[in-house]
C-alpha cells in the first residue's frame, strides 16, 4: 500500500485517442513519482478505452473510472471524489506537460503552504508546430511581492489575473473539500466556477513563472472548437459565480471586477462563436443576459476597458453612427 500520494492527477477522457498516449506518457513520466492518476472515461466511442486499459496494466498508479457520456464537469467531480492526494491537478487529455511540472508546482505549494499554485503555460499550435506565449494566464504585474498573497492583494481584476481554467493550477484537496468546491456539470466552461471560487476563497496563493504545461490548439476534437452545441454554458457559469459570491458575502466587494469580467467573457464568447448560433447569442445577450448579469445600467466609468464598453453599447443599441451613439450614451449616463 502506497503512502498518501502527493498529487492526484485527474484526467477526463472523451474520444481523445490521437493524443491520449502522449498525455499519459507525459504524466507517468513525471519526476514526481508519488502521484495517483485518475482517468475518467466519459463514455468515449473511439479507441480511448483500449488505450487506458493498456496503460493501466503497466502502471499501478493509474486508475480508470468509467462513466456514461455526461460531460467533463461530471467526470472531474467523479475524479475529485475518488482522489486521495494532498494536492489535485486537473489535466486535459489533449495537452502535454514538462516532465517536472508536478514536482515544481508541488514544491511551490509546500514551501508556501499554498492552497492554490498557478504556473505559466503556453500554446502549442499543431498545424504550424510552434509554441506561443500566453502572458495573460498569469499577470505578474498584478501580483503581490510579499506573502501571504490572497486575491485582495491583486492590483488587477481578480478574475483576470489568472484564467478560469483548472489545468495550469494545483489545488490543495483539503481546501477544496472544506469549501465544498465542485465543477459544474455542463459541456464547456465547467471549471470557471470552481477556479474562481477557489481564487476568491484562498488565503495563500503561490505562482511559478516557468512554463510547465502546453495547451494544444487547432485539434478538431477540442471541445472549445465545437462550442455551437454549448454556446450558453458560459452564461450558466457566470450566473453561478455571481450567485455563489453573493452566498459567500463577497459579491459587494467584487462586484465591479465581476461585472467587468462578465462583459469581457460574454464578448469573447460572442467573438469566437461561429455559425448561426452567433446571432442567437447576440440576441440573448441583448434581450436578457446583460441585464441578468448586472452589466446593463452601469455607467461608462464603471468599466475598466472602454473598448469593451463600446462593444457592449453596439450590441444593445445596434451600429449607430459614432456621433449619435456618443450623444445617446451621454443622455443615459
Amino acid at each position, binding site marked *: 500500500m502506497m503512502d498518501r500520494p502527493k498529487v492526484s492527477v485527474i484526467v477526463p477522457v472523451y474520444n481523445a485517442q490521437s493524443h491520449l498516449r502522449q498525455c499519459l506518457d507525459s504524466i507517468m513520466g513525471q519526476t514526481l513519482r508519488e502521484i495517483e492518476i485518475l482517468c475518467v472515461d466519459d463514455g468515449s466511442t473511439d479507441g480511448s478505452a483500449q488505450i487506458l486499459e493498456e496503460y493501466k496494466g503497466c502502471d499501478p498508479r493509474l486508475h480508470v473510472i468509467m462513466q456514461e457520456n455526461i460531460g467533463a464537469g461530471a467526470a472531474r467531480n467523479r475524479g475529485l471524489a475518488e482522489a486521495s492526494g494532498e494536492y489535485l491537478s486537473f489535466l486535459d487529455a489533449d495537452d502535454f506537460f514538462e516532465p517536472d511540472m508536478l514536482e515544481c508546482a508541488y514544491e511551490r505549494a509546500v514551501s508556501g503552504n499554498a492552497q492554490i499554485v498557478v504556473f505559466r503555460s503556453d500554446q502549442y499550435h499543431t498545424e504550424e508546430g510552434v509554441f506561443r506565449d500566453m502572458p495573460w494566464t498569469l499577470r505578474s504585474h498584478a501580483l*503581490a511581492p*510579499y506573502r*501571504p498573497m490572497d486575491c*485582495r492583494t491583486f*492590483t*488587477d481584476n481578480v478574475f483576470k489575473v489568472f484564467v478560469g481554467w483548472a489545468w495550469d493550477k494545483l489545488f490543495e484537496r483539503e481546501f477544496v473539500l472544506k469549501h465544498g468546491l465542485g465543477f459544474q456539470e455542463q459541456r464547456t466552461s465547467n471549471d470557471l466556477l470552481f477556479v474562481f471560487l477557489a481564487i476568491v476563497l484562498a488565503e495563500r496563493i503561490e505562482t511559478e513563472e516557468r512554463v510547465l504545461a502546453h495547451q494544444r490548439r487547432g485539434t478538431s476534437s477540442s471541445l472549445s472548437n465545437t462550442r455551437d452545441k454549448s454556446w450558453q454554458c458560459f452564461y450558466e457559469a457566470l450566473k453561478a459565480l455571481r450567485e455563489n459570491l453573493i452566498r459567500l458575502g463577497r459579491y459587494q466587494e467584487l462586484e465591479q471586477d465581476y461585472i467587468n469580467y462578465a462583459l469581457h467573457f460574454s464578448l469573447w464568447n460572442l467573438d469566437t462563436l461561429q455559425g448561426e448560433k452567433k446571432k442567437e447569442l447576440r440576441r440573448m445577450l441583448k434581450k436578457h443576459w446583460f441585464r441578468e448579469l448586472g452589466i446593463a445600467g452601469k455607467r461608462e466609468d464603471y468599466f*475598466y476597458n472602454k473598448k469593451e464598453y463600446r462593444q457592449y453599447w453596439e450590441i444593445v443599441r445596434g451600429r449607430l453612427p459614432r456621433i449619435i451613439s456618443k450623444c445617446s450614451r451621454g443622455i443615459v449616463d
Partner: protein
Amino acid sequence: MAKVSVIIPVYNAERYLAECLDSITGQTLKDIEIICISDGSTDRSYDILQKYQEQDSRILLIWRENRGYGYTMNEGIARASGEYIGIVEADDYAALNMYEELYQKAKEYDLDFVKADFYRFKRAQSGSMELACNHLSPDPSDYNKVFNPGENPETLRYIMNTWSGIYKRSFLEKYHIQHNETPGASFQDNGFWFQTFIYGKRGMIVDQPYYRNRRDNPDSSVKSKEKVYCINAEYDYIRGILLKDPALWERFRHMYWFKKYHNYMGTLWRIDEKYREEYLMRFSEELKRGIALGDLVREPFSCNAWNNIRSITEDPKKYYLTRVYPAGMNQKVFEQMQALETENRKLKEEIASIRRSKTFRLGKILLFLPGRLKRMLRRRKR
C-alpha cells in the same frame, strides 16, 4: 479590579527599560497592574524586569520565546484585568500623572478611549535632551470634547499611535479588537488603532502631552527585505476588517486610503535605498487599483499629496528617477534632467496652444472631408 492595566511589550530593551519601568511604577495612580511581556528577548532585560518585580507586586512578568509584537499585545490584553488598558513601549516612558489624569477623563465622560498629545524625544551623547510636542490634531477645537469616531471618518486624520492613550477593556472585548499576529514588529499598531476608531462611539483627545516617545533608538529602522512590505500586509489586514461590514468599508474607504498613502510614503523613505524602486512599482500598482475601484479619491488629500499620487500612478519609473533616486545621484545629471523636463513641459504646452488656436481648428474642419475620402480610398485599394 485595577483601574488601569499597563502593558509593556519588551524586546531587547535593556538600555531603556529601567527608565520606562520607573515612570510606570511611580505613577500617581496607584491602583494599576503592570504586565511586562518579554517577546523572546536575548539581552539582560530579564534581570532588570525581575529586579523590579521583586520590589513591586503589581508587576506581572511573562517571559517566553519570540511570537511577534501583535501576539504579545493580544496576550497582554487577554491577561489584563483592569478597567482601562494602556500601552507603553519599553524604550519610551510616561509622565507620572499620565494614567491618573487620563483615567479621570475616561471615567468622567464614560469614554471608549481617550488619547493625549505626546512628546517625541532624542537624547544626545552629552545627555542633553531634545523634546518636541506632537499634537494629535492641528485644530484646537477638536480637543477636550467627546466625539464619535465611528460616525466621523475625518477623525482618522488625527496622528496615529496607540500608546498615548487608554482604552476601555470592555470596549476592546465587545468588538474583538485585536492586533494582527504577524511576525516581528510589523506595524501591527496600525490595525489596532484603526479598529479603535471605526468601532469607537465615545472618544476624546486631550491637549496635555504625557507620553515620551523615543526617536534615537538605532535599532528601529528597516533594513531587511522581508520588512519592506510589512506595512502593505498590515493594510491588507485592515481592509479585511473593514470589508467584513460593507457599510463600514463604504464609510471609511477614502480615509483608509489617506492613511495608507501616508504610511506607504513614510515607508518609501525609511527602507533601504536598494529596495525603493521595487517598492514604488508596487505602490503605483496599488494606487492605480484603488483609483479604478473608486476607493482612492482626490477629496481627503492635500494638493501636494495628490500630485504625488498622480505622478506615481502615471509614471512610477519617472517618479523614482526624479523624486526618489536623486538622493544618491550625481547632482549634475539631475539638474540636466530637470532642465529637460521643464523644456519638455514647455513644448507640450506650445503644442496644446497651437491645437487650441483658431487657424488650427479651421484647418481641421476644412481637411475633415478630404481626409475621410483619402482614408476610404486607401481602404478600397487594400
